[in-house]
């Protein structure tokens, strides 16, 4: 999009209306500057940024509507329009004139018909190239060239070549030929015409041409440079009259084929081919450093495959790399640890958040894609548990959510460390899901982690943890017992229900110990009575001495009036639930007791149980 400045044009423009009214142009520049600055400060959707761009667009279109084209000449610290300063930079470095000038832009012209996207792209290019980076990939000029904005023109000079243009091309002189890398000195003895490689023996007509070119049979097709004949006489010229020109005439079908090729190339998605090539290249690397370099690039490519939903390619890549990793015969080869590191890297948040796009849209993936995603995710490092866990709450497709749950479970079973980290997450919903998954792990750390979750501040999480522990069966009662003092009545009820489910020496001893200590955190009559009741349901004769003492004895607390009547009532209830002869005898004694409190305890218990 390089344009030549025509002196005549610039002269004629001097008389234009905008030149007479530079304030209009200055306003455009003020708006331009503001849009540029706000572009750097605010995110894309921010109202201030949007308004600034709109204002710039508006001002610009006002000027362009009058003269079709608004050209701004660039100097290091200012911008000019038709010879008049319309913007003077204060900042210099990093300001619009400076960055344009730095990259060699001499002028920029906005033309009639310029669209919003062009202005946005222009601002984006300026912003991206605001500061010079070492060994940068390009600059404003290359970015504008690549963008090919149809209504934005510019002229640039090659600032990259400040020194003299490189020598080399200028070295040779007419008639002077350097072969074999040796330059013939200018003073070298000239080659006499008689010693020229070929004598000029004039031939008369084209037939003779043909004869000359038919000296040798045509060679076989070229396979490599080594096959290139040593003398040119061995090869027939394509200009030889006996060669049919139709041989290189394109047919209509070939033209169509060519068109197809071009269309295909223009829409080429490099991912598939690049992954192929990189795996081939990786296998060829002989040093750790080169191997790592290729792997680093593969990480980026892998991320791109996910972003483009090319799960098949991503899964195939991981298959190949796993095979490669397992294919090294030497146990101490340096490559497998680097491949492990690769799997570790791609299992992190930075790579896996490429799933963001598809997980937020319900049913965005087909069943086949889901199967591939499963194959892909199962090959990841357990580190993936953390990012996948974080994605779970925002995943709207229930199939994908289910898949994530399965993968998290599988990977956490190998190493539950990341799952443990997720259990500390502030989002209760997420933690509850993790507890659910934890409940299904076979890993030995699962139960201790679940037990730890029994003290989580959230009722629902504790409940989930409790359920998970309960569902794991025997050996879990002691872990759950602390829930007997849970602040949630529901959990307390559940745990008591669990204890009271059947006769159990474990439950009995846990309850006995708890009740005999008498240091209830929750010293509520109903809770205490419920504990006694549970003891009655799970207990045995071993509880009878303790229950007898609680029901019938009148200790020092009753003397000083600190007796808790509900404990006596609870003991009576427990004895009733024991349904044993010894217990019956004690209850009879209580019914006949001379102490009102004992009799009342029995009566209340009897009423409650009945």
């Amino acid at each position, binding site marked *: 999009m390089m344009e030549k400045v025509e002196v005549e044009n610039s002269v004629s423009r001097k008389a234009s209306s905008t030149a007479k009214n530079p304030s209009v142009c200055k306003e455009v520049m003020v708006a331009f500057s503001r849009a540029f600055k706000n572009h750097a400060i605010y995110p894309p959707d921010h109202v201030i940024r949007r308004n600034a761009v709109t204002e710039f667009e508006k001002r610009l279109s006002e000027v362009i509507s009058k003269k079709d084209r608004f050209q701004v000449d660039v100097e290091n610290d200012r911008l000019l329009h038709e010879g008049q300063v319309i913007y003077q930079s204060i900042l210099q470095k990093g300001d619009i004139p400076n960055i344009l000038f730095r990259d060699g832009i001499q002028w920029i012209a906005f033309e009639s018909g310029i669209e919003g996207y062009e202005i946005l792209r222009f601002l984006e290019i300026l912003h991206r190239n605001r500061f010079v980076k070492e060994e940068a990939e390009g600059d404003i000029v290359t970015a504008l060239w*690549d963008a090919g904005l149809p209504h934005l023109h510019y002229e640039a000079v090659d600032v990259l070549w400040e020194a003299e243009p490189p020598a*080399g091309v200028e*070295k040779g002189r007419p008639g002077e*030929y350097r072969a074999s*890398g040796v330059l013939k000195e200018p003073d070298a003895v000239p080659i006499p015409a008689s010693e020229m490689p070929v004598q000029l023996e004039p031939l008369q007509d*084209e037939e003779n041409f043909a004869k000359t070119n038919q000296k040798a049979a045509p060679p076989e097709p070229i396979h490599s440079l080594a096959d290139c004949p*040593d003398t040119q006489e061995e090869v027939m010229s394509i200009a030889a009259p006996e060669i049919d020109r139709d041989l290189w005439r394109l047919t209509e079908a070939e033209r169509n084929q060519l068109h197809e090729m071009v269309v295909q190339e*223009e829409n080429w998605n490099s991912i598939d081919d690049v992954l192929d090539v990189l795996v081939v290249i990786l296998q060829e690397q002989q040093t750790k450093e080169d191997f790592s370099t290729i792997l680093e690039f593969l990480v980026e490519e892998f991320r791109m495959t996910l972003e483009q939903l090319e799960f098949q390619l991503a899964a195939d890549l991981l298959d190949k790399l796993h095979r490669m990793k397992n294919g090294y015969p030497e146990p101490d080869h340096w490559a497998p640890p680097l491949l492990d590191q690769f799997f570790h890297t791609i299992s992190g948040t930075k790579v896996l958040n490429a799933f963001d796009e598809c997980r937020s849209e319900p049913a965005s993936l087909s069943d086949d894609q889901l199967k591939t995603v499963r194959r892909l995710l199962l090959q990841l490092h357990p580190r993936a548990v953390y990012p996948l866990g974080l994605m779970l709450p925002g995943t709207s497709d229930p199939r994908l959510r289910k898949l994530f749950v399965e993968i998290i479970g599988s990977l956490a079973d190998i190493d539950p460390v990341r799952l443990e980290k997720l259990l500390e997450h502030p989002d209760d919903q997420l933690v509850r899901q993790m507890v659910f998954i934890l409940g299904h792990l076979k890993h030995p750390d699962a139960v201790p982690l679940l037990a730890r979750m029994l003290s989580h501040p959230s009722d629902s999480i504790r409940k989930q943890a409790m359920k998970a522990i309960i569902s794991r069966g025997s050996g879990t009662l002691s872990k759950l017992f602390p829930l007997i003092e849970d602040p949630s009545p529901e959990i307390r009820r559940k745990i008591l229900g669990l204890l009271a489910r059947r006769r159990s020496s474990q439950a009995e001893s846990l309850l006995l110990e708890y009740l005999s200590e008498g240091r209830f955190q929750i010293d509520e009559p109903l809770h205490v009575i419920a504990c006694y009741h549970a003891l009655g349901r799970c207990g045995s004769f071993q509880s009878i001495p303790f229950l007898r003492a609680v029901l019938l004895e009148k200790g020092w607390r009753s003397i000083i009036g600190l007796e808790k009547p509900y404990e006596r009532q609870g003991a009576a209830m427990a004895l009733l639930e024991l349904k044993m002869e010894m217990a019956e005898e004690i209850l009879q004694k209580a019914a006949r007791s001379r102490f009102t409190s004992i009799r009342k305890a029995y009566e209340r218990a009897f009423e409650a149980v009945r």
Partner: protein
Amino acid sequence: MKKSAPPRESNEEIRSAAEEAFIQELCRLIGIVRIHRENNRLVLQCAETFIRSIFALVAEEDYVTIQFVRGRVFLQNQKVAYRRDYEILMKKLSAFFSERSIGGLRFHTSISDAPIQALLTFARLLNEAGKEKNPLGPSARKLTDAGIAWVEILHEPHSREDDRESESTDAAMIARKTYAQVLASVQEVAQKVRAQERAGIGKTLRMAQNMVDLMMTDESMFKALSTIRIYDDYTYSHSVNVAILSMCLGKHIGLSKNSLERLGLCGLLHDIGKVEVPEEILNKPGKLNRDEREEMKKHALNSVRLIVKIKASRDRKARLLLPPFEHHLKFDLTGYPQTPRKKPVSLFGRILSIADVYDAITSPRVYRPSILSPDRALGMMLKGAGKDFDPILIKVFINMLGVYPIGTLLELDTQELALVKDTQQAADRPKVILLIPDGKGGFDTGEQVNLDDRDPTTGTYLRKVIQSYHPSAFNIQPSEFIF
């Protein structure tokens, strides 16, 4: 300061030496004020020598006029016949003034009364004129402001013919400059890569874009650039030539500008892996042995690795990897590298392969005593259509270059030697430059003729081709005549 008239022969020699001295001193003066302060001894000496060089030229007139017309230098209205050693200097001087839209300068003898500082001010104004939008105007005004009356700035003479020739000279200059810059940018990347530094491709990218622009403006000129051979840096000039030929082919099949840019970059970087091939293998006279061939073959894979190492965005690099990987793979997937990947060679890979082989077999190398003329190279490549090369692309390539590609040396039935300059009109009968033996083993540029021209009375062609050669067979560097 008039001189006595020496003998005619001697007078010419003296004049020629004086002209060269004046031009040299003018260049020095312009250059030295950029480097040193006004009070520097060298600067003062230079100014004095310059004034002396003016007076060495003054004869009947009381001024010296230097003018620049179509890239040529005129003194006192006469074309300066300079030695070849001065060619670069003349071109630079001419370009310096052309960039400033200055047609010439007239120095009056009153310069002898001018303070040295004024002379230096003038030299600085000339330098600064390059930064001005309309260089001539402000400079002239500034001269007046500075009280400098001993020099006049002359306008560039204008005629349509002049413009056309000048444009052509400018275009050739731009083309050569672009080639040199592209070459340097590839060398720079290669050097950094060789030194294990992280190389950026900013310059190379800008160059690839400039190449696309140049090709869009003047394809013929652009194509002709591929005849440039830098024998000291074969690998790099080969890369540039492959890029040029590939881009031309890409343009002919209708690729977009952005794809052409990518194709150009692929061409420029396709052999970057050769930086890791030992020099003794790269430049070995004679054929390579098996081990050496295997070592050489690694360069395709090495190129990919080195491109991965380049400092650029993932997307950019990803799009540059495949064609260099494939450029030695043939259409039928023979060639190298042989890998488990069995997909057809990509379009860019197929294009690079054609351009690579064509440039390689038409480039004189130490290990090949004889070299194919471009038309024979095409004949040979056509035989490989469908096996070595994409059969459709090779056709397009031949149509693009013509049966006598630019730079082919032709022997004509008129006992003349001619160099193909343009193939656009009639592929079999291109436009050529006649080469006139200079009697010293070299050639001078002769008339440009069209081999399609016929005798108006008989209707027969005026000149017929009887034989083709690679220009190296006659020690000819085609680019020197074409540009």
